[in-house]
């Protein structure tokens, strides 16, 4: 009994981590291609097997070739660097990013052998707080990388990263409070469940229609937290070479690049769960598709689950794509503009959103 439960937990955790890492690797290729499309180039297309064979498998080759190139390069620790922290920094950066997605549900219940399994690796009643905690731990890897490299640019990148991430965490947390007030729970599975059904019979009952302002704030703050353009001040190439990972090469640099993509996936996963229904598919419930005008198509539960997981993955992928598009469209902020946006625009807007949401909740509760 308990062994099987343990096995289920282990499988779920490994599944989520595996999914996230693979999606991160895939995004590396997508980003190269997307930037090429936006800049009217062809993009990565030269990786073929042994450089001789005429087979060009495109995606597969680039996916394999990029990591091989990075992992076979020399792992260089600059003289004067703090060896221990220099080695530790990529690990400190990647671990919180990998385990954040554990609380995000990717499907409803699946029934295997009479056992109901929630498609969520860790069901915590403090789910949203857990995410905030992991996101706030993410800054250490960056700061340590900057400090331990013994390099002025790296140090500047680290300082910039810590200031930026602290500033935008506040707006991010306040935007999340709006969502928590709407659903009355911090458990992400409950939040996803609450978004079933239809709104006015035409729209899906998704959080975006209750919390549009929170969505915009969360998207902005999320991109800033993942340090992607237009918020990539910590690694601004023209000013700081590569910012905090200037002195990294080989596998460690690959890890930092992976962390960037993992954070994009986390932001996409949270936006999906909080504002776009999570794994909910419009009109679909546990028994099959139900039309609002009556009638429906019954479906087996396995098909329903697969559709839900597919919907979740699709939505996550869409928001990753959106972030990549934003990255290659908008120019970088100046540092003062970044701080003004965080403290003078996003923070008051998020406070206003909390106030309005609280009032709306109060009124709707008293009308009941």
């Amino acid at each position: 009994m308990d062994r099987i439960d343990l096995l289920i937990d282990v499988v779920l955790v490994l599944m989520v981590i595996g999914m996230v890492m693979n999606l991160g690797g895939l995004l590396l290729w997508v980003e190269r291609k997307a930037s090429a499309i936006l800049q009217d180039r062809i993009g990565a297309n030269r990786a073929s097997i042994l450089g001789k064979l005429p087979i060009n498998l495109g995606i597969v080759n680039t996916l394999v070739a990029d990591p091989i190139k990075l992992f076979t390069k020399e792992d260089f620790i600059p003289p004067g660097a703090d060896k221990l922290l220099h080695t530790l920094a990529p690990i400190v950066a990647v671990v919180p990013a990998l385990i954040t997605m554990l609380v995000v549900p990717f499907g409803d219940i699946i029934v295997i052998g009479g056992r109901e399994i929630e498609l969520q690796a860790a069901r915590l009643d403090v789910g949203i707080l857990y995410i905030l905690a992991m996101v706030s731990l993410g800054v250490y890897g960056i700061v340590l990388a900057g400090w331990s490299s013994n390099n002025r640019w790296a140090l500047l990148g680290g300082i910039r990263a810590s200031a930026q991430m602290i500033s935008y965490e506040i707006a991010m947390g306040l935007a999340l409070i709006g969502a928590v007030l709407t659903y009355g729970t911090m458990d992400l599975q409950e939040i996803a469940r609450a978004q079933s059904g239809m709104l006015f019979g035409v729209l899906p009952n998704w959080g975006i229609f209750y919390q549009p302002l929170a969505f915009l704030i969360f998207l902005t703050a999320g991109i800033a937290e993942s340090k992607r353009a237009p918020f990539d001040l910590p690694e601004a190439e023209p000013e700081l070479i590569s910012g905090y990972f200037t002195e990294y090469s080989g596998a460690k640099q690959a890890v930092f690049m992976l962390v960037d993509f993992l954070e994009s996936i986390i932001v996409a996963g949270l936006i999906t769960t909080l504002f776009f229904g999570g794994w909910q598919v419009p009109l679909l419930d546990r028994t099959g598709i139900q039309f609002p005008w009556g009638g429906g198509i019954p479906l087996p539960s396995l098909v329903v689950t697969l559709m839900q997981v597919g919907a979740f993955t699709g939505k996550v992928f869409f928001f990753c794509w959106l972030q990549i598009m934003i990255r290659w469209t908008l120019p970088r902020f100046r540092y003062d503009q970044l701080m003004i946006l965080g403290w003078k625009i996003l923070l008051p807007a998020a406070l206003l959103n909390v106030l309005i949401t609280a009032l709306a909740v109060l009124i709707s509760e008293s009308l009941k």
Partner: protein
Amino acid sequence: MDAITFTVLSVLMVASAIRVVLNRSPVYSALSLVMLMSLLAVYFLYLDAHMVGVLQIIVYAGAVMVLFLFVIMLLNLQDSIQDYRQEKLWTMGILCATLFGELWFFFGRAGGESSAQHAVPEGFGTVISLSQKLFTDYLLPFEITSLLLLVAVVGAVVLAKR
């Protein structure tokens, strides 16, 4: 909490506490403190304080210590041997030993009197039970805390703006 978990956690916590105090480099001190706070969060989870454990990471490890690291890096503090006091070491030792002896004596007695653990009510340490108590019995302290935070924000801005 069982004996093995307690032993592992407490040994690690005491070791990182000693590193906080004795390390020459302020950055390493700060990092040891981060480690101690994260371990303490795990400890809180084992003591059925889920909400407090997560808050411990968000507030201490995620905000306060990042601020410390930020200031250390901004001031670019170097290691220095002058950081340790060399004089009056005996006074210090006696003071700390007295403090420790007192605490040890009284806490040791606590074990003898009431070692039986009370039953934990349903929903102990969760978001809902904590916030219900916070917004009923502890409403006034809560409001005063918000005032205190406001004062701190204004004070920090005024100080840093000069």
